[in-house]
């Protein structure tokens, strides 16, 4: 682990943000709190996706599979089999990890190209959606409704949106820090090597399979856990939201807008776009449904055409120019 990781961990900016953010549930009206929670969910999801999509440079469209497993399976286990949701969280995360390892193995074994990888993961995501829609145990097309959140921590209940906020804040910070850690660890170095030239990496003896599986599994486990927490917050396990490729596409777009492959880029993209989208939906959703997605699309196209590296490099330049710029700048890797 390079010292940059500990620098970020010890950074006053990080702790400052956390301390400032902690009392937000008491300050914000519930509508804005909801937007903040959603933003944190997507910060966590985009950051978890970034490990495969950004650092390893493979556009995986299977992320909804892991989010959906975490959400739908843990809910089904609770409702249908009475399994405690903490246990359900672990079971779903384990199954997500297995699915992820399988996909990474397929990718390695069959030496899928970029396009093939996109398509295979999309096919798996579609298949996952179909399985959920067609299998009553997982709620079928109508979804599952969780019991009311009464705040029993041991039952994976956090007392509504206040608790959900802290849980999501924790998960978002963990996901971002995992990104920072990987970028500054040998794994990040190997992933970059594989991304830039997989054949060369194989030739110099990099254990490509190991690192691909590691990246995919870490990414999937994080996504699955966030999925479980997210569904607890939503209370309603909606298959069309949680295990549809659309959620992956959103995540990919957030990460792209922020800046792929860097530790903070995907988080930045989600923090900018989710509130924008939610406010648009709140204000104009009744008149113009879909407006926020429309705007996401426009923003991502504009960002790709104008600054293909994402917005983070722009922000960094501003950050560096501030008076007394110090060495707290995160390590970034251009995609």
């Amino acid at each position, binding site marked *: 682990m390079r010292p940059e990781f500990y620098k970020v961990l010890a950074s006053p900016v990080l702790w400052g943000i956390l301390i400032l953010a902690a009392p937000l549930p008491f300050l914000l009206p519930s509508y804005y709190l909801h937007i903040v929670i959603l933003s944190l969910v997507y910060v966590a999801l985009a950051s978890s996706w970034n490990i495969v999509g950004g650092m390893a440079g493979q556009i995986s469209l299977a992320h909804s599979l892991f989010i959906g497993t975490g959400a739908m399976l843990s809910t089904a286990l609770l409702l249908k089999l009475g399994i405690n949701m903490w246990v359900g969280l672990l079971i779903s995360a384990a199954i997500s990890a297995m699915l992820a390892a399988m996909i990474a193995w397929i990718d390695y074994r*069959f030496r899928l190209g970029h396009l093939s990888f996109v398509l295979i993961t999309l096919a798996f995501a579609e298949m996952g959606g179909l399985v959920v829609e*067609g299998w009553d145990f997982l709620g079928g097309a109508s979804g599952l409704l969780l019991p009311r959140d009464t705040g029993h921590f041991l039952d994976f209940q956090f007392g509504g949106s206040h608790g959900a906020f802290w849980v999501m804040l924790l998960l978002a910070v963990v996901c971002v820090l995992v990104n920072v850690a990987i970028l500054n660890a040998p794994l990040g170095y190997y992933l970059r090597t594989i991304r830039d030239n997989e054949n060369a990496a194989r030739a110099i003896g990099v254990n490509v399979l190991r690192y691909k599986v590691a990246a995919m599994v870490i990414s999937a486990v994080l996504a699955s856990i966030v999925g479980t927490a997210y569904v607890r917050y939503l209370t309603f396990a909606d298959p069309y939201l949680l295990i549809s490729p659309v959620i992956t596409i959103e995540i990919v777009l957030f990460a792209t807008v922020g800046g792929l492959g860097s530790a903070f880029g995907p988080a930045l993209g989600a923090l900018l776009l989710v509130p924008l989208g939610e406010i648009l939906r709140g204000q104009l959703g009744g008149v113009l*449904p879909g407006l926020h997605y*429309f705007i*996401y699309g426009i923003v*991502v196209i504009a960002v790709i055409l104008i600054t*293909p590296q994402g917005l983070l490099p722009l922000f960094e330049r501003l950050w560096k120019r501030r008076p007394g710029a110090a060495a707290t700048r995160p390590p970034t890797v251009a995609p």
Partner: protein
Amino acid sequence: MAEFLQALTQGLLIGSTYGLLALGMGLVYGVSGVVNFAHGDFIALGMFMCLALYSALSLDPYVSIIITVPVMMGIGALVYRYLLRPMVGYKFLMIVQLTLGLSLVLQNGILMVFGGQPARTPSAVESKLWILGEVVMRVPHVIAFVVSFALAIGLYVMLRSTDFGRSIRAVHQNAHAASLMGIDVGRVQVLTFALGIGILAIAAALLLPGTPIQPTMGLRYTVITLLVVVLGGMTNFVGIMLGGLVIGISEAFGTIYLSDILGMLLPYGIFVLIMLFRPQGLTWGAAR
């Protein structure tokens, strides 16, 4: 036996249109390396244009293509010229992301204009049936089959025996050499993209009668098209049509012989298997 024939026919009829959808994508991929993840949303756009023309002028979808084809081609040319062409030279993944963004724009643009309720566009032949022995065929499916194959053959002949067709193939095989022939590669790419989108406009009308349409349906079509293109070996003309039939037939057999969900899964399962064990597609280095 009757059930078997019924499924086979159904699959062939639908599969031909899938093949047509995929030909458009394969052509574009061949000349510019663009995999358009908004492909299906262009189909949805074509369908909703037909719906609008029906509501405004009570035009039959089959008649509407006189208007939708040139309009969609124009949109396609603009999209390629101003959105995709600047991406040439960037990584393939940027194009994936850009077209995913485009997909959101199209899908939700449609949603904002038409709303999210499923809609239908009636056609004069919508409920007509054509019975051949024990096999019952819906006339719109028969029309789709005939038109799809006619267009595919037309495209094939165009690629083989016209200067424009040869330019497309030249750019596909070696863009640098093509430009040394005096072929304007950028122009060929724009025109091919427009042609691909124009094909989608026709396919949209063919698929429309009897199908409830929704703004969000595009992604499904994108996925199906991608399956077919990959099965066909990306740029292999015969392979792509064959891929369309395979996907159509497996879908039809799946829904008739297997439970609902397994039936829907079948095409994806076949796709994954073929992807893994025959990544070069179904055919063995045939045409193109």
